[in-house]
């Protein structure tokens, strides 16, 4: 049956540069014309419809996370849980989950996050233009993550540099020496910090991810504890940072919605809409383990499909006026946290920090925030996406 279907069409016109600047027009066209498309410049089969991205994420047997051909192993000097499947993945994931569960968040991380937000907001001048993305979104994401992971001795700058270096290494598909030299250096720095933190946490346990892992009754190997803290460093700053800047842009360019969100305290809905509108993680890859078919296209074993959750979140079949920021959607079944066994482990933390704490605190302190020139905000990114600056006047 499968052999009668043709391979997906090939596109040779889409460029990485185009996707990095603004992928949404391309995804709109692909959804309408060819929702399963082999994109030559990326070397992946793009899936742009919500039903297909969801199906792939929820079927880890046919669509494996364990793709040995990505540069990720070299960048992290290990195979992290993000690239494992089945029982092994679940065991490593569960090893750190208690640090990320709602109970721990409410008891430990939310109070700490409130203090951090207050401290960082206090540093900002009133009435002047500040780059909120650089001054708040980025360092606050780095600071709370350092605490959650159990390495508060790492500075904001350390965390940001490690995170970006790991991301650059993991995306080094051209196998250039520079990014791997940088990630090797970052690994050495992190190994040192983690070794010292492990000694401290063995003596004085707390509720951080490193502590619960090293103090577990039946711990996973130390090498995997280190690898998985690193994946959380690489994957835990960009997303809350970009989510926050995106949500603020959405609210500040839609003042009527902002007023209604404030009046009805719909911060959670604003958060969900921001991450739908511009998903911080736009795409994911899965290795095809057996011949299969998606939307009448034959997908052979060994192919790598790319679920474009950014596009799924704009699928006209699920969302009216998907291109608009609308915090008052009746339903918002976005896929920004993924699905299946690799569903984002930081989901609860992000909703309960950025959504429940940062947004209301910010507008309470600065009720008249202005975005004087929305056109000055630049958006970038194909794999990860968000504003790269956010000039605001805080008042």
């Amino acid at each position: 049956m499968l052999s009668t279907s043709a391979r997906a069409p090939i596109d040779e016109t889409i460029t990485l540069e185009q996707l990095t600047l603004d992928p949404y027009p391309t995804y709109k066209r692909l959804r309408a014309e060819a929702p399963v498309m082999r994109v030559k410049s990326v070397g992946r089969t793009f899936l742009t419809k919500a039903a297909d991205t969801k199906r792939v994420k929820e079927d880890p047997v046919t669509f494996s996370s364990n793709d040995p051909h990505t540069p990720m192993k070299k960048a992290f000097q290990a195979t992290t849980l993000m690239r494992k499947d089945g029982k092994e993945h679940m065991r490593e994931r569960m090893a750190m989950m208690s640090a990320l569960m709602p109970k721990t968040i409410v008891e430990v991380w939310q109070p700490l996050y409130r203090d951090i937000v207050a401290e960082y907001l206090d540093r900002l001048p009133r009435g002047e233009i500040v780059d909120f993305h650089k001054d708040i979104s980025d360092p606050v994401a780095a600071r709370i993550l350092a605490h959650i992971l159990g390495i508060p001795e790492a500075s904001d700058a350390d965390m940001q540099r490690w995170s970006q270096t790991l991301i650059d290494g993991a995306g080094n598909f051209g196998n250039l020496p520079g990014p791997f030299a940088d990630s090797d250096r970052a690994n050495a720095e992190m190994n040192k910090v983690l070794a010292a933190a492990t000694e401290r946490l063995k003596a004085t346990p707390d509720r951080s991810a490193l502590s619960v892992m090293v103090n577990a009754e039946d711990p996973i190997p130390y090498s995997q504890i280190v690898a998985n803290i690193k994946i959380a460093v690489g994957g835990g700053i960009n997303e809350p940072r970009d989510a926050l800047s995106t949500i603020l842009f959405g609210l500040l360019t839609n003042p009527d919605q902002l007023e209604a969100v404030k009046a009805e305290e719909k911060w959670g809905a604003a958060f969900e809409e921001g991450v739908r509108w511009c998903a911080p993680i736009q795409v994911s890859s899965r290795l095809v383990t057996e011949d299969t078919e998606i939307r009448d296209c034959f997908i052979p074993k060994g192919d790598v499909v790319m679920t474009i959750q950014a596009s799924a979140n704009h699928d006209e079949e699920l969302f009216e006026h998907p291109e608009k920021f609308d915090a008052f959607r009746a339903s918002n079944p976005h896929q920004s946290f993924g699905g299946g066994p690799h569903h984002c482990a930081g989901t609860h933390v992000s909703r309960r920090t950025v959504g429940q704490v940062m947004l209301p605190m910010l507008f309470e302190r600065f009720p008249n925030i202005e975005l004087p020139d929305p056109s000055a905000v630049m958006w970038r990114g194909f794999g990860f996406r968000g504003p790269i600056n956010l000039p605001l006047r805080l008042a």
Partner: protein
Amino acid sequence: MPKVTFVASDGTRTDVDTQAGTCAMRTALGQNVTGIIGECGGAMACATCHVYVDADWVEQVGPRKDGEIDLLEFAASEMKDESRLSCQIEITDALDGLVLHLPEAQI
């Protein structure tokens, strides 16, 4: 065709038709029952399909699956003896009339 009743935390009851072989989470999502999110699609990774099985049905529904209790501890609302992940409750004809209570919050 088995029927399932979802009772929201404010007491609102929603009766839905379902079929044997699916799960309670998909039953809710397929009928737009609010109060169940099921974001991970049944992989036991998100704890957003938490339900409390009605006391009269606990025995018929049966025990929790392997690993389920670990996720329930991560749920947004309090875990009780009758807590289940609805993605792990397979609908059978014997569960016709099943009553599931929804927690106050899933996220």
